[in-house]
């Protein structure tokens, strides 16, 4: 657990970057710090590994004050991923990944061997090992950046806008892989982004900062969408928050009507309709299907792909209305 205790950062010149921050980042979870530029989110992140020194207040990692720990040793125990990856251009991909284990005293050979496994873990084949960062795409560099931060298996990872320097398609891909990786690893992750959609997609918890370095709300993404603390959070979250909050609601409980009036093949699979959903999908998926399908009807299918129910937009509207009461 990472704890901010009444942390203040005032830069020389009088700018208050972080204003009396109290925050707890739970162990094994992703906490996303989000807010407009100049809200102190990056400063807060960089105070955890002492890249920035607080003006007052304390930051504790598992109860231990970071300011009492050896700076270099603290940083080696915390993974650090930055925007544009910040890879060492003069070192091969493999040696980039091996950096922290070598600093910790591992032999270069052992560190490289372990690094090879990590590359695979972040979706890069062994052929990338001998390349230099300049020979990689932005997305590949960012993968190497994540592998490098994971190399010494730190319990904590700090990620500063890790996915913002790549195009939207690659970003979505990296985000999905990152979530999969985190499911296996269960690291305590603090991530900074200015993108509220990314925060909601990736965060177990989201800390919304406002300009002037004050915490506006700390909540789960679902709470954030359903009950924004004030107008600032509501407007930062965006106008379609109601629709987006449906992505946290399962379609499992959604009542369906019997399959009737649509064409099925011999095994009962719907014909000519691209949009189907399962009990595992979210209400947002169903809503989208209902809106976009020509007949205003979404088809639910079972695990075998056979249609087992229909939902019209009246059914959906009734269901959503009934949930409110």
């Amino acid at each position, binding site marked *: 657990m990472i704890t901010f205790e009444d942390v203040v950062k005032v830069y020389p010149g009088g700018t208050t970057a972080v204003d009396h921050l109290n925050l707890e980042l739970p162990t094994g979870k992703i906490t996303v710090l989000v807010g407009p530029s100049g809200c102190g989110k990056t400063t807060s992140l*960089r105070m955890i*590994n002492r*890249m920035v020194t607080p003006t007052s207040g304390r930051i504790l990692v598992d109860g231990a004050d970071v300011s009492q720990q050896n*700076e*270099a*040793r*603290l*940083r*080696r*125990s915390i993974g*650090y991923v*930055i*925007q*544009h*990856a*910040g*890879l*060492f*251009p*003069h*070192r*091969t991909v493999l040696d980039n990944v091996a*950096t*922290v284990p070598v*600093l910790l005293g591992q032999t270069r050979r052992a560190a490289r061997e372990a690094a090879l496994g990590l590359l695979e873990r972040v979706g890069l084949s062994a052929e990338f090992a001998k390349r*230099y*960062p*300049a020979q990689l795409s932005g997305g590949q560099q960012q993968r190497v950046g994540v592998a*490098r*931060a994971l190399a010494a298996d730190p319990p904590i990872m*700090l990620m500063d806008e890790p996915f913002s320097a790549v195009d939207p398609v690659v970003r979505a891909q990296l985000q999905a892989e990152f979530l999969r990786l985190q499911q296996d690893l269960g690291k305590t992750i603090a991530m900074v982004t200015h993108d509220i959609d990314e925060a909601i997609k990736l965060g177990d918890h989201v800390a919304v900062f406002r300009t002037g370095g004050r915490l506006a709300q700390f909540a789960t993404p679902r709470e954030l969408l359903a009950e924004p603390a004030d107008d600032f959070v509501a407007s930062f979250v965006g106008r379609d928050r109601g629709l987006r909050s449906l992505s946290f609601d399962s379609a499992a409980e959604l009542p369906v009507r019997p399959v009737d009036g649509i064409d099925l093949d011999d095994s009962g699979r719907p014909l000519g309709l691209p949009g189907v959903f399962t009990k595992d999908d979210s209400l947002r998926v169903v809503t989208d299907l209902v809106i976009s399908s020509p007949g205003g009807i979404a088809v639910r299918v079972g695990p075998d792909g056979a249609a087992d129910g229909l939902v019209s937009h009246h059914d959906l509207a009734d269901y959503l209305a009934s949930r409110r009461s």
Partner: protein
Amino acid sequence: MNFSYLTDPAHWDPSNPGSIPNLILSHLGYTALALLIGAVIALPVGLYIGHTGKGSFIAINAGNAGRSLPTLGLLMLMVTLLGLGLLPVLIALTVLVIPPILTSAYAGMRNLDHRVVDAARGMGMRPWQVLSRVELPMALPIMLSGFRNAALQVVATATVAAAVGLGGLGRLLIDGLAVNDYSRVLAGAIVVAALAVLVDLFLALIQRLIVSPGLKGS
């Protein structure tokens, strides 16, 4: 004017102290000494200024001042103050090589990608590890180009040593002019030019060997 001096085998006989190979050796000796002393003085200063940003005006002005200082004039001044000998020659040549080495060390450090340095610190490198493992290797291409520049200048200028009675390829120029032997002057000019090219090629080879392939073309 002809190539007779250059092509005469007697002038290439190493057992003759005034022969071209021996003049090349002493010429290279002055060059190497001046580069060595200049680097020992200018590298730490340039790296420090570039790293901290303190005293940038020194690095910038050093470049301009160095270019405007006439080496021959400085040499004569030093001889007046210190008498004849190796020392005044080395001082004059060292003053020549310091500006390009200092300025390029400064530029190399200034042009570092601060995000990479930030990553190095954030991963737990200690300050000297950041310097030796990240900053210096990344600054090396620019630093070496300054060193090559300095080497070229000093190879060409080390001919002044002969003006105050020392050896080096300047002997061919000074003595040739003194006795109106233009074939000897031509030989001196050609050998100095060839030597400059060879020294630069040699340093280019060193650069190839010690600069990371990852920094090529960046």
